[in-house]
């Protein structure tokens, strides 16, 4: 039993053919999760009994099907049969605690599954636990969790990125082959880059947000982590698609992502936004990503110059719109219907205030207040309305750029992983980690981060591809072609 996973298609095939039991695979993942949690703090909850029970059920159903067939047929089992998966703790799984990295949800156990969870379970996956994250997905380092930071498996004195730090670390350390996270301003792509794994944020409306605890409803999407592009494409194929529980999902057919995966990128036009490769970008990251451009040239892609003139305003737009939406979405945490309620409050409004003061951490409070401020009377026009107009400009920038290219390449993060504690006292410096990723959420376009190197200090670097709406197949093809050409095989110090 390998402690790391080649790819989930191999794992699934071996389980479905009876070559290996789901139980053995899941037991292996559980041992790794438990064994590494003191070091990484990637998991807030590991569901040993539930995962093993489910693995046993899968093994039983495979045995039954084999017995009833004349000869062992091609068993049609789900694409994720027996595959262990980790879920960010802001996605609802029935019966498992969902904390969103916060104290304010107390001991909350959702009475329902998120749609993406129904779909991964329907495909046979085994959820081994819920991963640590920045509180309510607000952060770029996983240092805003009420339950302690996650450590980067490449260097445990450093952050894994955020907000989906736990999911990124779990895949990087080889505990699980794939994990779900959420991406509102880069919270899947940036930790993927800092942890040396693949991370995808799909087009807005590709996945259902039903059961994803809302942070900013016009920006949030469930995203996927994996050790390679093929595995990420496999999971997207399982979770994508229209959901009647989420009116913002689009009625766009889900392609056969894996079947369409080739390495042929000849003639693909890749946009290079030169202006984004200047000031503020770490020199090692710049060199790494420029090397990727050369690789694509060698593979026959055409590199074209593009401009995203309003990209420098993206952080400002994001921290107005996202905080405004968050101030509305987090109003529901008031101690009335679920979660934590402050004691010693004998009057309703005092109960609300004390619950929220005791339950929320400082970053969440900061963002709620910012959002409240920009929406308040007298300031709405100056901030929120203005931000929405600049958001429209950013969307236009992408439309214009995609008229002359099929995908745009950028770094994912401006630096490799930074030290724990390095940026916690400077919120604005922390926000600037999202400089390459927030544009995709504002415009609704898909983005994928793929590992492309390791810095001299031994820290992974990733590059990002952004594409037009619904261009996930092209992003997968480009990412896959790069992987096959360059074989990123470096492993983190801490791994299963």
């Amino acid at each position: 039993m390998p402690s790391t996973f080649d790819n989930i298609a191999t794992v699934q095939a071996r389980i479905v053919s009876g070559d290996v039991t789901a139980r053995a695979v899941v037991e292996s993942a559980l041992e790794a999760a438990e064994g590494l949690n003191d070091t990484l703090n990637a998991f807030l909850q590991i569901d040993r009994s539930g995962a093993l029970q489910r693995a046993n059920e899968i093994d039983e159903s495979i045995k039954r099907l084999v017995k009833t067939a004349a000869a062992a047929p091609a068993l049609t089992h789900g694409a994720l049969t027996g595959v262990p998966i980790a879920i960010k703790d802001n996605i609802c799984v029935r019966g498992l605690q969902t904390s969103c990295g916060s104290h304010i949800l107390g001991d909350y156990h959702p009475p329902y599954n998120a749609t993406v969870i129904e779909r991964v379970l329907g495909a046979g996956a085994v959820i081994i636990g819920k991963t640590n994250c920045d509180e309510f997905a607000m952060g770029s380092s996983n240092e805003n969790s009420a339950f302690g930071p996650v450590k980067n498996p490449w260097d445990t004195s450093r952050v894994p990125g955020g907000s989906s730090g736990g999911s990124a670390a779990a895949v990087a350390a080889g505990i699980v082959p794939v994990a779900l996270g959420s991406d509102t301003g880069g919270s899947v792509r940036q930790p993927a880059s800092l942890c040396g794994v693949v991370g995808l944020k799909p087009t807005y409306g590709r996945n259902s947000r039903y059961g994803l605890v809302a942070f900013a409803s016009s920006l949030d999407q469930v995203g996927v982590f994996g050790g390679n592009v093929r595995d990420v494409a496999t999971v997207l194929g399982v979770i994508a698609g229209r959901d009647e529980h989420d009116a913002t999902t689009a009625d766009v057919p889900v392609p056969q992502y894996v079947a369409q995966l080739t390495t042929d990128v000849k003639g693909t036009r890749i946009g290079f936004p030169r202006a984004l490769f200047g000031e503020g970008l770490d020199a090692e990251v710049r060199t790494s990503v420029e090397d990727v451009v050369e690789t694509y040239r060698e593979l026959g892609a055409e590199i074209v110059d593009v401009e995203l003139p309003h990209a420098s305003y993206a952080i400002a737009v994001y921290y107005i719109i996202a905080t405004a939406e968050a101030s509305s979405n987090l109003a529901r945490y008031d101690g009335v219907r679920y979660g934590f309620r402050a004691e010693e409050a004998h009057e309703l409004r005092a109960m609300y205030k004390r619950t929220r003061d005791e339950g929320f951490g400082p970053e969440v409070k900061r963002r709620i207040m910012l959002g409240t401020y920009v929406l308040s009377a007298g300031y709405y026009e100056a901030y929120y309305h203005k931000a929405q107009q600049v958001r429209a400009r950013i969307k236009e920038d992408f439309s214009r750029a995609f008229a002359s290219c099929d995908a745009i390449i950028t770094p994912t993060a401006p630096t490799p992983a930074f030290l724990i504690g390095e940026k916690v006292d400077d919120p604005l410096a922390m926000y600037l980690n999202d400089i390459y990723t927030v544009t995709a959420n504002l415009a609704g376009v898909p983005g994928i981060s793929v590992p492309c190197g390791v810095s001299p200090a031994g820290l992974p670097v990733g590059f990002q591809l952004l594409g037009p709406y619904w261009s996930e197949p092209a992003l997968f093809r480009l990412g896959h072609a790069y992987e096959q050409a360059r074989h990123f095989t470096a492993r983190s110090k801490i791994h299963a």
Partner: protein
Amino acid sequence: MPITEADIEKIAQLAHLEITREQRLIFAPQMAEIVSYVEQLNEVDTSNVEPATGGLTPEGERTESSREDATAPSLGQRVALEEAPDPASGHFRVPKVL
């Protein structure tokens, strides 16, 4: 428009947050810095620009998302109260409004 401590107090009221004096002293300069940063948007000419409301793609806009006005099973009272801090007689009980 630099954010003052008085602004923070008012915002905290609106957001039902109880912010202590110590917290106010930390938050005020941080929020002032952030607000000052976002004010660079004033550099952008947005005359006659339709604001982008929401995140929908054109395909998302075209997707029919209404349904028949028919009842369907939902959580139900028992399940809905399972996580309540203080359920009572099928209700969410809360401290009184004074």
